């Protein structure tokens, strides 16, 4: 080998590069070692495994079993369910001239960006389809279903409109990174859109389209899309039609006999002009369909499946007309700057609408218009009405509304109210009176009396509220089915936060009614009261579809006890009302005077002196208290966690088991809990993997051969790469009004858990759609608490049969995304309990949903962050509802979720590993008995939850936890060794070449 100065420099450079790389690699290896559990959670690997020592006895350790033999069976079931939910969740709002169904083998022209890039899911957070290869593009699904699309028009969108107007949202880990086009056609077909209205101006291209219309003239379909995403609300006004969208509709109307509009997305758009437009024949809301949902949409369009969905939200003529909207968005404390409030403490939200959220507002005001009470017809809150507030002008389609291709007759056979068991049962016979087979939803609504007592004590009453629902099987023409809907009377009780300070049932006349949505049911109630169109009703109701029940005495005790019949329910959220801090500031909307209590916005409120500590300081300082009574690290017993599978929470053995845990183990279990729980050696607990996912786990099939359910390398590539985040968003499921489909959806969560190896799923989302602009509505069911409650409850109770840990989120009051991290949410306790909390209640109660997990929210309730609201997490969640599992924060920040205060208030685990949460460590625990006991209690909750989950599948009483090296760690070690050898070789060559060249140079000089 020839050595020159040039070669010496090369070896010098290579040595430098090698040594630097080695340094970085060694550092990276150390970092990865510390983050081992987190990396395992991401990759689905483990650093420990449970080894069972053979005892001679055969022991079935598959505590939770799958109903599927193969992964392919599960995938087929999921994709079929996705399709069926979409078909039943699509809501037919208008169908003039029998425009729908189209029948099969039709050629149609589809207008709009959605024809190539529809909204399949949310744009970020848990509602994102992570593997876009699994999406069946709209054109493919339609084509296979017999709807052939005009490719001339679609080509324009692909080649011209998409690159300019659409942003593909990445589906990476955080789900938010965006890149711009252009892309190839395949990428365009799978593109997600930007949020808000996005339709390009296609008018210049219309002329070039027209030559193709004749071959695709069976119908024009106009796609109107709106996309939502976590972290921000939709821009004000973006739910109105844009000029570009109006141009598409006009082009369709001018050139086609039949015009159909598809509403693609969760938010309730402003579509009154479409409703009134005689040339728009049909409107179908389809929400976000998921990977295979467009097959379901096609099923409805062709008529393969009859439409049977009903709206989960009110479609107002003006999307900004609700009282809630007036007080949503960006409100900063007037003294935020002078008081030194940071980004997490500067913002507030006053829910001045009280209980009048969604249809509760529009329908109650409508009744008061008919009854002529409460200044309901005044101009206050008028947005679309021409002369005083008018329901028909303000609302396009009411909550629960939906059409079918056939007609049904519903007969209210009976209503039985049993106060002893606190149930009400409605029996309804449904008959298909049309000529097409189909399903029909039975919706049962109730009205409570609005009494003088209520008016004196600031109790508000909605004129109508959903109490229960069910759905028939497919009824052939002429066929009937009797449906029995059993409902819980406690969900009809009102919360009296002023006088009784608990739930009450007023005396007076109650009405139970059925109908095609809340408005129809209310009209039936009004008919039962003797009202007609002569009184201002928009149409006459049917009195025989309503039932009046009189309660003679007011009851302030029967509904005042928690799930156990012992715990007294009383005010917990007094300080969530701004008036608690500054009396008389906020006037809540009241039906006693719509005009006088309407709020345009509570701007410029101050954070009072008493509020400031809550907004700025850690609320619990760990001190020096004697912790010697709390046993830790005990060797007296050697229980494995599995020993306590099936044991009561209060079983004495838990004490012994918890005594075995060291302070370090306890601290790590509660603070290092982002998408996993850690291994706990002292009790032979192997840890768990957990994931997010209202549309399904963000996880793949397990490839770990030691998992009971896993795939192998012999499974096809589609299965190998399959990600479970695929399903329709929750509003679509809600729109089915079908408890059976909710049960199947719960089954999918449970099966996904078994087959992925991930135990907890942070789902379903059960917050409410406070306004149509809330950015995260796609992850939540509805504006109605009972629709959310029932759907969520069924999903939780079903999924946990498979050992999954259901974790309804975000508990609670995540009502907007603007300033969500710390926004002080002010609300009165009646509204809090009858809306947001009622939506969650059933999911947690042991005999109902029985969810064993929950993720808390980012926001505050009043000025207390929810993570340190003892009233919410301990008194209500555990005390009143009997929540038995454990709660975890959302992505954790120390400035917001004060670690010590949160732990002593009832938070059990932190969703992150930020350094401030490691402030809860062995040292601090050893010095503060209250903190230590809180952490020990949290460990108890966490372990109790997991020992009864499918995380224990394969674990027996003879099992031990042993360490294993995951593949990525082996790869890192190997890379370190190779680079070290190369760096050393480079150094040797450099030294040799340096010496040779210098020796040669010296000789030359001599």
């Amino acid at each position, binding site marked *: 080998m020839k050595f020159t100065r040039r070669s010496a420099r090369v070896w*010098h450079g290579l040595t430098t590069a090698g040594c630097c790389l080695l340094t970085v690699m060694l550092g990276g290896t150390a970092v990865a070692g510390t983050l081992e559990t987190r990396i395992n959670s991401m990759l689905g690997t483990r650093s420990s495994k449970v080894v069972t020592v053979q005892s001679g006895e055969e022991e079935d350790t598959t505590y939770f079993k799958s109903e599927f033999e193969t992964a392919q069976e599960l995938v087929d079931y999921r994709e079929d369910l996705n399709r069926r939910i979409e078909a039943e969740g699509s809501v037919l709002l208008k169908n003039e001239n029998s425009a729908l169904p189209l029948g099969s083998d039709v050629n149609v022209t589809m207008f709009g960006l959605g024809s190539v890039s529809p909204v399949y899911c949310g744009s970020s957070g848990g509602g994102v389809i992570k593997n876009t290869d699994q999406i069946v593009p709209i054109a493919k699904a339609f084509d296979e279903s017999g709807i052939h699309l005009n490719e001339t028009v679609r080509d324009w969108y692909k080649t011209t409109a998409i690159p300019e107007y659409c942003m593909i949202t990445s589906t990476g880990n955080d789900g938010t990174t965006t890149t711009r086009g252009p892309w190839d056609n395949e990428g365009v077909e799978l593109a997600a859109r930007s949020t808000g209205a996005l339709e390009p101006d296609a008018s210049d291209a219309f002329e070039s389209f027209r030559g193709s219309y004749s071959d695709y003239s069976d119908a024009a379909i106009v796609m109107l899309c709106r996309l939502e995403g976590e972290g921000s609300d939709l821009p004000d006004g973006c739910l109105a039609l844009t000029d570009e969208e109006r141009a598409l509709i006009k082009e369709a109307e001018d050139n086609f006999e039949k015009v159909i509009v598809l509403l693609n997305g969760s938010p309730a758009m402003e579509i009154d002009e479409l409703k009134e437009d005689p040339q728009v024949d049909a409107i179908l809301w389809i929400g976000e369909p998921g990977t295979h949902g467009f097959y379901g949409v096609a099923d409805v369009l062709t008529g393969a499946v009859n439409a049977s969905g009903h709206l989960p939200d009110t479609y107002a003529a003006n999307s900004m007309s609700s009282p809630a909207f007036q007080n949503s968005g960006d409100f900063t404390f007037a003294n935020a700057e002078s008081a030194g409030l940071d980004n997490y403490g500067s913002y507030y939200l006053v829910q001045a609408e009280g209980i009048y959220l969604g249809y509760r507002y529009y329908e109650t005001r409508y009744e008061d218009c008919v009854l002529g009470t409460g200044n309901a017809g005044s101009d206050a809150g008028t947005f679309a009405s021409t002369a005083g507030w008018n329901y028909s002008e303000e609302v396009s389609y009411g909550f629960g509304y939906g059409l079918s291709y056939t007609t049904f007759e519903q007969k209210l056979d009976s209503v039985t109210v049993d106060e002893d068991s606190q149930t009400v049962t409605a029996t309804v016979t449904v008959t298909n009176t049309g000529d097409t087979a189909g399903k029909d939803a039975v919706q049962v609504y109730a009205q409570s009396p609005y009494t003088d007592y209520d008016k004196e004590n600031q109790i508000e009453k909605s004129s109508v509220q959903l109490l229960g629902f069910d759905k028939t099987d497919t009824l052939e023409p002429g066929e009937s089915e009797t449906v029995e809907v059993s409902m819980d009377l406690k969900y009809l009780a009102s919360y009296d936060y002023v006088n009784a300070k608990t739930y009450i049932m007023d005396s007076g006349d109650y009405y139970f009614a059925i109908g095609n949505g809340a408005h129809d049911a209310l009209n039936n109630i009004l008919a039962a009261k003797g009202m007609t169109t002569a009184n201002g009703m928009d149409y006459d109701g049917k009195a025989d579809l309503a039932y009046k029940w009189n309660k003679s005495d007011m009851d302030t005790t029967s509904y005042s006890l928690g799930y156990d019949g012992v715990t007294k329910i009383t005010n917990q959220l007094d300080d969530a009302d701004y008036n608690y801090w500054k009396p008389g500031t906020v006037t809540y909307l009241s039906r006693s005077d719509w005009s006088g209590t309407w709020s345009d916005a509570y701007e410029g409120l101050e954070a009072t002196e008493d509020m400031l500590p809550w907004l700025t300081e850690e609320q619990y300082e760990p001190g020096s208290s004697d912790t010697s009574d709390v046993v830790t690290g005990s060797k007296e017993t050697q229980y494995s966690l599995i020993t306590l599978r099936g044991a009561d929470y209060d079983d004495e053995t838990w004490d012994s088991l918890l005594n075995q845990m060291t302070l370090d183990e306890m601290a790590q279990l509660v603070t290092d809990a982002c998408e996993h729980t850690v291994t706990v050696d002292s009790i032979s607990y192997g840890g768990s993997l957990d994931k997010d996912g209202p549309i399904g786990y963000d996880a793949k099939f397990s490839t770990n051969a030691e998992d009971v359910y896993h795939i192998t390398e012999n499974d096809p590539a589609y299965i190998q790469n399959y990600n479970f985040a695929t399903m329709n968003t929750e509003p679509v499921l809600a729109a089915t009004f079908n408890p059976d489909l909710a049960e199947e959806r719960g089954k999918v969560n449970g099966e996904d858990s078994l087959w992925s190896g991930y135990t907890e799923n942070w789902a379903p989302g059960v917050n409410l759609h406070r306004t149509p602009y809330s950015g995260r509505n796609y992850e939540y069911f509805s504006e109605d608490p009972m629709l959310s409650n029932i759907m969520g409850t069924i999903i939780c109770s079903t999924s946990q049969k498979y050992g999954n840990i259901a974790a309804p989120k975000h508990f609670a009051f995540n009502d907007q995304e603007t300033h969500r991290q710390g926004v002080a949410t002010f609300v009165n306790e009646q509204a809090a309990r009858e809306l947001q909390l009622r939506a969650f209640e059933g999911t947690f109660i042991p005999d109902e949903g029985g969810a064993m997990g929950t993720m808390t929210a980012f926001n505050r309730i009043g000025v207390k962050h929810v993570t340190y609201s003892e009233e919410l997490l301990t008194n209500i969640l555990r005390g009143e509802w009997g929540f038995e599992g454990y709660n975890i924060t959302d992505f954790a920040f120390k400035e917001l979720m004060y670690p010590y205060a949160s732990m002593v208030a009832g938070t059990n685990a932190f969703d992150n590993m930020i350094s401030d949460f490691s402030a809860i460590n062995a040292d601090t625990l050893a010095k503060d008995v209250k903190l230590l006991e809180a952490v020990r209690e949290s460990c108890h909750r966490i372990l109790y939850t997991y020992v009864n989950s499918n995380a224990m599948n394969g674990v027996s009483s003879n099992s031990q936890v042993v360490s294993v090296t995951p593949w990525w760690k082996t790869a890192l070690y190997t890379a370190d060794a190779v680079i070290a050898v190369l760096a050393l070789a480079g150094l040797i060559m450099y030294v040799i070449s340096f010496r040779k060249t210098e020796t040669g140079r010296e000789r030359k000089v001599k």
Partner: protein
Amino acid sequence: MNGFLQKQAGGFYVSALSVILAVASMISYAVLATDGEKTPFMVYVLTVAAVVITIVVLAWNQTQPGRKYYNTSSFFAALLYAVSLVVFFMGRMEWIGGLAAHNANFAPMHMSFYVTVALYVVTMLLSIIGSFMKVVKEQG
């Protein structure tokens, strides 16, 4: 001045640029430190040491052309930058752990973290490139 510049080889310019970027890296690191998370002081020490070594050896090369020396400052500087990066990462390990979370993009100081990392990486890469090059043209 022209004479001075004309006698400099590529290594001089690359090393000089790495010094500028090292200072920028430190400033970015200081900005990142304001979020209250762990930001070890040792990173400053290591970075300053790398800068000083680079400047001293560059200056020494001007006065000692033709000596048996091959810009070893780049080797040590690059190594110090690499160690700085590792110490930086080790100090913020728990924050980095949060990056794997499902909505990590909401973490505070998200952008400044990436900017600081990028600056240190580029600085290190420049030093590595410099180690392949002569500082002054008179060197063999």
